[in-house]
Each structure stands twice: as structure tokens, then as C-alpha cells.
């Protein structure tokens, strides 16, 4: 049997797996599938959407979703809620919202120093009762790596055009 320290270190396995999955993505569709798989299998949620950030605009349109009602969540309002502009700035990379707001987690998807999209996670699975330090590292990795996987492998210049090709 391998030493128990291997088990203690195994939280790092999630980060390694998530990084590899995103870097192996060949196109935006596969990158979105990778994000969905990471959020479902490694974080613990089956309700999510990606909103396009168009700087200077107060409404962020929904580009892609899984497990949420796309009509109900067709856009994210960045004008009245103080959290969304902060996420766009990338200052707090993850915003934990209260139960009265539609999304539990907002993760800025960064590319070349700018937030190009926001990954919004609505509810965690019932058995996932908290977001710990290890989860925060995973969300930070998504913030840092998902943008390259989604948009850099695509010739389209911005998030909405890239995903509109799907």
C-alpha cells in the first residue's frame, strides 16, 4: 500500500486534473464541456452558466448554460449588484453570494489580464455543504485557465463571438 501521505496530498490531484482537462481542450465546445465536467465532478454542482463580459455594458448576456433555465437567466445585471462589477474587475476572483441571489458562486474567466466572461454557479449539490480552501484553489484555477481554453484556441476576437460559433 502506498503511504497515507499520498491520500493527504490528493486534494492536489483535483487541481492537476482540472488543469490537464482545460489544457487538452481542442475547441470552445470541448472547453465548455471541460468546464461543466470540472464543476460537476470536482466541485459539485450541476447548475451553471457562462456570461459574456462586454466592458462598458451593464448587462452581461448568457452565452451558454447547463442545468439552469436559460430564459430566466438570460443575462446578468452588472449595474445594481455591487458584486458583479467587482468580479469583472477580478479583485475577488470568487464571490460567495447570499441565498437570496440567483448564483452561489461567480468566477471571473480571465484572459490576458482582462475578465472576458463570468462563470456563474447556481446551487451546489446537496452533499456539497461548504466551499473550502481547496475548492477556492480550484475556482482560482478555473479563473486563470478557462479563458485560454475557451477563447485563445478560437480566432474570434471576443467571448460572445467565440461561443456563438458553437
Amino acid at each position, binding site marked *: 500500500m*502506498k503511504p497515507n501521505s499520498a491520500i493527504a496530498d490528493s486534494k492536489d490531484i483535483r487541481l492537476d486534473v482540472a488543469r490537464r482537462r482545460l489544457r487538452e481542450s481542442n475547441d470552445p465546445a470541448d472547453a465548455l464541456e471541460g468546464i461543466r465536467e470540472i464543476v460537476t465532478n470536482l466541485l459539485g454542482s450541476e447548475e451553471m452558466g457562462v456570461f459574456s463580459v462586454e466592458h462598458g455594458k451593464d448587462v452581461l448576456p448568457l452565452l451558454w448554460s447547463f442545468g439552469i433555465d436559460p430564459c430566466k437567466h438570460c443575462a446578468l445585471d452588472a449595474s445594481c449588484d455591487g458584486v458583479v462589477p467587482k468580479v469583472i474587475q477580478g479583485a475577488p476572483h470568487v464571490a460567495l453570494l447570499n441565498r437570496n441571489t440567483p448564483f452561489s458562486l461567480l468566477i471571473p474567466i480571465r484572459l490576458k489580464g482582462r475578465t472576458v466572461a463570468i462563470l456563474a454557479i447556481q446551487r451546489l449539490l446537496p452533499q456539497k455543504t461548504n466551499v473550502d480552501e481547496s475548492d477556492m484553489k480550484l475556482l482560482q484555477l478555473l479563473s486563470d485557465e478557462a479563458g485560454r481554453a475557451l477563447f485563445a484556441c478560437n480566432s474570434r476576437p471576443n467571448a460572445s463571438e467565440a461561443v456563438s460559433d458553437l
Partner: protein
Amino acid sequence: MNTKKILVVDDSKTALMMERSILEKCTPYQCVTAMDGAEALVKAESEKPDLILMDVVMPRMNGFEACKKMRERASTREIPIILVTTRREESYTEAGFQSGCNDYITKPINSTELVELLQSYLGK
């Protein structure tokens, strides 16, 4: 010593990577993979695994159906099957046990919990 072999079945590349990595880094068990229930049936016959760790929601043939078929075949009837799912409602787990699985583990997979569960079937 004869190394125990686990067949890991999931249509998600990420889940397969995660489960394979846990097995490689934290256990002495050998790992083979399949990406849906139909492929799992074939691999269960050809690879003769000591245990099957299988997702429920998959294309072509889901985990419940695959589990039921494995229980119908003499060659795979005795292999312990652990189903992996995001859902833990009683009605859902009951459906899994009716299909013939031995155990359940929920996503996101906790590596310590998974290793302990595998050890309980295969030993250290």
C-alpha cells in the same frame, strides 16, 4: 503479489482522469477504463476486473442497465460494483441496489472516502 484490477467507467474525461489519478497515486490497484455501459460490459468480460467503479448517467447504456446486465452474466455476476452518482436521494440509491450494485459513492469524489471504500472490498 497479484495486483487487483479496477474497471473505471465514466463518459466524462475529467471523472476518468480524477479516478485514475486517485488509483495511481493512492492505491496499489491497476486501472482500466470504459466510457459507457456498453463498453463496460465488453471490458468486464475481457479484463476480468476485481471491482467495477461505474458512473450512472452515461450515453448508450447507463450504469443501472449495465449493472443489471452484469448480474445476469455468470462471468461478471460476482464482481463488486460501486456506482458513482451526483444524486443521493433514497429512491435513486434504491434503484441502484435493485439493479445489483454493491455500493454507492457520490460526486464530487472524496479521494480518502473512495480509497477506504475500495480497500473494504479489495483489501490494502
